[in-house]
């Protein structure tokens, strides 16, 4: 079976304002970011669905010594989506020096940002951008 939701398709949708994932027709679990099979039951029978982008911060860090091509400090976090999966992205619109343990458990919405690639990254990419819910 052809790869259902490729990175290219996922990226283009995200740039267009749609956060896509996969929902399994066998067990109902969501797989985000996409994989070839459902990460719960390994079925290939999944539909492409729009993901709410709502979730809670589970952990975070502030990158102060960044890789070549990035400028710190910035916040990287992992969010547990309401649909179940965990995803990685940047926590934005927040002063990195104010990031503390109280971030964990905070509710967020998810957008995206386009990130310029380097000579190893096969072009530009996208990162999820999490914003604290009011």
């Amino acid at each position, binding site marked *: 079976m052809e790869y259902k939701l490729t*990175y290219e398709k996922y990226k283009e949708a995200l740039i267009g304002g749609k956060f896509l994932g996969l929902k399994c027709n066998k067990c109902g679990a969501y797989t985000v*970011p996409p994989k070839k099979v459902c*990460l719960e039951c390994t079925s290939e029978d999944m539909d492409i669905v729009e993901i709410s982008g709502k979730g809670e911060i*589970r*952990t*975070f*860090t*502030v*990158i*102060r*010594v*960044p*890789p*070549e*091509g*990035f400028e*710190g400090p*910035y916040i*990287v*976090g*992992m969010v*547990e989506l309401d649909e179940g*999966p*965990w*995803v*990685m*992205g*940047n926590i934005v619109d927040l002063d990195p020096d104010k*990031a503390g*343990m109280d971030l*964990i458990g905070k509710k967020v919405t998810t957008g995206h940002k386009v*990130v310029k690639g*380097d000579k*190893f*990254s*096969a072009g530009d*990419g*996208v*990162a*999820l951008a999490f914003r604290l819910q009011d």
Partner: protein
Amino acid sequence: MREVAVVGVGMTNFGISEKTQIEMFSEAAMEAITESNIEPRDIQALFLGNVLGDFEEGQMNMAPMCAADIGIPNIPATRFEGACASATVALRDAYMWVASGFYDMVLAGGTEKAMVMGTPMATRTFAMGSDSRYESFAGITFPGAFGMAAHLYSKKYGIPLEKLKEQMAIVSVKNHKNGVLNPKAQFRKEITVEKVLSGIVIADPLQLLDCCPFSDGAAALVFASADKAKDLTKKPIYIAGTGQGSAGPLYTQKDFTVVKSREVSSKRAYKQAGIGPKDIDVCELHDCFTIAEILAIEAMGFFEYGKGSQASEDGETALDGKIPINPSGGLKAKGHPIGATGAAQAYEIVKQLREECGERQVKGAKIGMTDTLGGDLATVCNIIFRR
């Protein structure tokens, strides 16, 4: 499967080196071959751990060149890449091929020259262990992944972050103390908790001395069938069990304070050896960051989940503790030339079981274990050795 033993080991000093990766490996390899009382031509295959040679020296396919450098250009010579676990994956395969009877004698190890890249490029290339499509564009780094692990750990077990940071600092202090006793270590000076807690922040909450250094170095071991081993050395060190486990990108692992790849790997190794964690006398494990050592001693079964940080504070992992962890100084003080690290851990355990470790000797150690982790907890490989 038949019994397999390590008959010789070799290792360069770790730190910064002017030698090439091939030159460093050849030094370690010839030390191991000489110790084994064999000639290079007795080696039937070379399994080489190397992670970033392409970026460090523009050198791809290094294994055949390493074989040629020690005069055996025509044997099968293969590079193994499992990020920072590369050498242990190579060692485990060497063991399995000798155990299966396909080969009688295999040289395995690793080499790396990371210092030449400088911090920004090294940070970029080490981060290639993350998911390049779905994680790397967020600018995640290797310290960043473990910084997130520390915050998860603090929250999950209700240990205030300031308290956890002190316990993490004690891990670093302990490994530096051991490193003083290791002539091959990159750092041979004691540090204090206060010094760890006053270092620059690399990725919250990890400070400089929570992190292992970039390093150059190489290490190598000769594996032989047990029947051959008895003729070659008075002190063969046998392989009692091995395991290897994987996990997908960090986001698929969810609560990654429980390292599933390590649970799978260590259980498999204990099962094969017919023993449990309480039977291990000495262990070299993957302390790339202070929190990483705490996660490792839990998933390997030395301490219950959530108790590893307190056990570290209580000195249970010190040289004279319940289970001595990283007598060599670990990745933190001995150094972490990533493609060589697993072989250097095995070097230390073999030396410990032969009782050749001088001041850092764990007295009477009969069973030792190595634990090596690659990528964002994506690869873990364990080897149990016995006298």
